[in-house]
């Protein structure tokens, strides 16, 4: 619900990103025209409406990089306040799909996205949506920790500053502290907030980047193989953190580790060669997969 208003009034923000080169005819018919209507249909200020069950609804998403098609007709529902894992062999399109959700593919000039992806019923690819506003609602954590070459404090304060979330210095300090606490990093860095974030260890950097994403109070956090560059202890800490964050955010995680998907996620989607093969509750996927390809992959027979 909270997403709708900023999306609708998104043109207020400076529009510096390349605009989406979108083919309207291929989008789901209800995508743009339906968005305001849907918004009106949902009773405002109501905690448990039916749409809140699924935060993200994707329908017939096709993605092209130049001539090459990377995703084929992906339709998937991502539940709110839970962790959804995308698994599949390298190059299967799971990261591409992830990057569609916050329109990071806009930064790649040759990328073209078709189909509809709705967050709380509003199409993220609609012309009225400013990707800049969208991304402040949909945070992202990358494979390799990428703290800015600034202090730890400045790293976390970056988002709140550019979005004007804190008018006073104390507010900003409060946001930084609570974000670092949520990311489980506060105790380790409280006495060195003004040292460079690049001086932290890899696992600490990744938690710093998560704190940076949390600081703008997103509703969705996308994680693109967040633990692939980390050792097992740092990985365990991040997984614990993901489990804690689940109560507040809708989390989507791309992972190559089947064990990790089983540990942290409630829902799992299996991608293969650009197609969504199967999705469902994680337990079911791992104990009783319907598709043989899924079974082969999770038992390690290919991939």
């Amino acid at each position, binding site marked *: 619900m909270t997403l709708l208003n900023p999306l609708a009034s998104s043109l207020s923000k400076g529009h510096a990103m390349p605009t989406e080169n979108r083919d309207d005819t291929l989008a789901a018919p209800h995508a743009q025209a339906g968005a305001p209507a849907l918004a009106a249909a949902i009773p405002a200020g109501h905690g448990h409406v039916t749409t809140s069950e699924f935060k993200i609804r994707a329908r017939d998403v096709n993605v092209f990089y130049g001539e090459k098609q990377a995703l084929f007709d992906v339709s998937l529902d991502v539940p709110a306040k839970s962790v959804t894992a995308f698994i599949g062999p390298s190059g299967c399109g799971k990261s591409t799909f992830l990057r569609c959700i916050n329109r*990071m593919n806009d*930064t790649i000039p040759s990328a073209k996205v078709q189909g509809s992806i709705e967050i709380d019923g509003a199409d993220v690819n609609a012309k009225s949506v400013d990707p800049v506003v969208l*991304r402040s609602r949909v945070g992202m954590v990358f494979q*390799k920790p*990428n703290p*800015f*070459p600034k202090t730890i404090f400045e790293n976390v304060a*970056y*988002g709140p500053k550019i*979005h004007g979330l804190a008018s006073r210095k104390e507010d900003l300090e409060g946001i930084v502290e609570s974000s670092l606490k949520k990311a489980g990093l506060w105790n380790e860095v409280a006495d060195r907030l003004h040292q460079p974030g690049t001086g932290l260890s890899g696992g600490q950097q990744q938690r710093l980047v998560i704190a940076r994403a949390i600081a703008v109070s997103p509703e969705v956090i996308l994680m693109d193989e967040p633990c692939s560059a980390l050792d097992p202890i740092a990985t365990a800490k991040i997984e614990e953190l993901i489990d804690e964050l689940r109560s507040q955010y809708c989390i989507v995680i791309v992972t190559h580790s089947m064990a990790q998907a089983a540990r942290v996620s409630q829902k799992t989607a299996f991608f293969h060669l650009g197609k969504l093969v199967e999705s469902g509750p994680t337990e079911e996927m791992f104990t009783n997969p319907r598709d043989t390809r899924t079974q082969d992959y999770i038992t390690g027979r290919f991939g």
Partner: protein
Amino acid sequence: MLTWLSLLFLALFSSAAFMAGRGRAVKSAGGAAARLHSLPNYYGAYAALWAGVPAAILLLLGAMFGGRVEDALLQAQRPAAVSALTPDRQAVFFSDVQATAEGQAASEVTYEGALKVAFDAKVAEARTIDGVVRYSTLGLAGVLALIGFFLAVPRVNPEFRARNRVEGWIAGVLIACSVSAVLTTLGIVLSLIWESWRFFESVPVLSFLFGTEWAPQIAMRADQVASSGAFGAVPLFAGTFLVMLIAMLVAAPVGLYSAIYLSEYANRGVRATIKPLLEVLAGVPTVVYGFFAALTVGPLFRAGFNWLGAQMIGGPLDGVGQYLGEVQNQMALVAGVVMGIMLIPFVSSLSDDIINAVPQSLRDGSYAMGATKSETVKKVVLPAALPGIMAAMLLAVSRAVGETMIVTMAAGLQAKLTANPLDTVTTVTVQIVNLLTGDQEFDSPKTLSAFGLGLTLFVVTLGLNIIALRIVQKYREQYD
């Protein structure tokens, strides 16, 4: 001719040594090259190097210094009649002896009596010495080649580590190259220091560094040699600084902004067009910029200021108008602006590389936070690239300080201590050119002052380069 022939012969001998060394290696391994420690060619190269290189070095040294040795031997003993001559006449005598001995035209001096006897004796001696030096060099080279050959070839056996030895030779050549570059630099610095020392013997260092009047031509008059105050370098450095400042005011923003546009905003097609064009601009010789400044920009600026002055005359700013009406073609502003244009591609190309070196992951991180492109550039990319950009600017400054042609043509020659960009100024480099062009003795303070200026300028640019390098090193540690 003889040297070239003998070098050719040596090359043939060296090739023979190669074949011998290689053949012996293969033979000693019983035809199975795999049993050898090194590849067969290494054994050949080892023998060829020993047979060829020492002899070649001797031949080249002989070609370079043989003449000197001959002169020294010839002049070691001077007949009494020759010793009686003045040193100048003695030099003429010996050069005539050399020329006659080699069958070339001598000077028109005629030698009579005892001198004639001495002359003929020395000519004969010169011919003998020439033959001895020449053929002894050749003989010695031959002996060296043979020694090398017979030292190297018998050592070849399957256990012999020829590859390591040959690589040692290669390392030696590489070291020699780098050492020669360092030694050349050292030689330049030492000669600068030596000549400056001679200059500072006649002009005190302090009055040179802090004097405010530059009038080197006064010292040309014998009775006023080294009159202090005429060699105050402050106006020159002030002029240099003024022109450099104007140049950087043009080059820094334009170059940096074009770099930001090229690396962050331009699409691939635009970038592929503009970058080569900028690099063409960087390839224009400075003398071309110089006459562009003197013939196009100078008159244009003059016309502009004169017109502006004409509008002001009679008004409340009458004085300013009068001044602007008299502005000439040559001024610091013209030189500075054109130099700035010259530096734009330099600054832009360096900054573009530095901005591109900022990892894409940082930009992605910023975009994923909901930052706009301009926020990303301002708050993430530029801060990360700042040390490198600073280093690029400092390199541009040291180029501006060392630039000569544009200023010679467009800024004038008068040494004035002024901060007025519309006035004529002169710079250190321009003065050095003026002091040293033309036929002059290098012993008056006037010419020697060029070395004083050169040394000071060298210290300034060296300092700037060191600072730039330091910043670049720090920059490298920034991310990763």
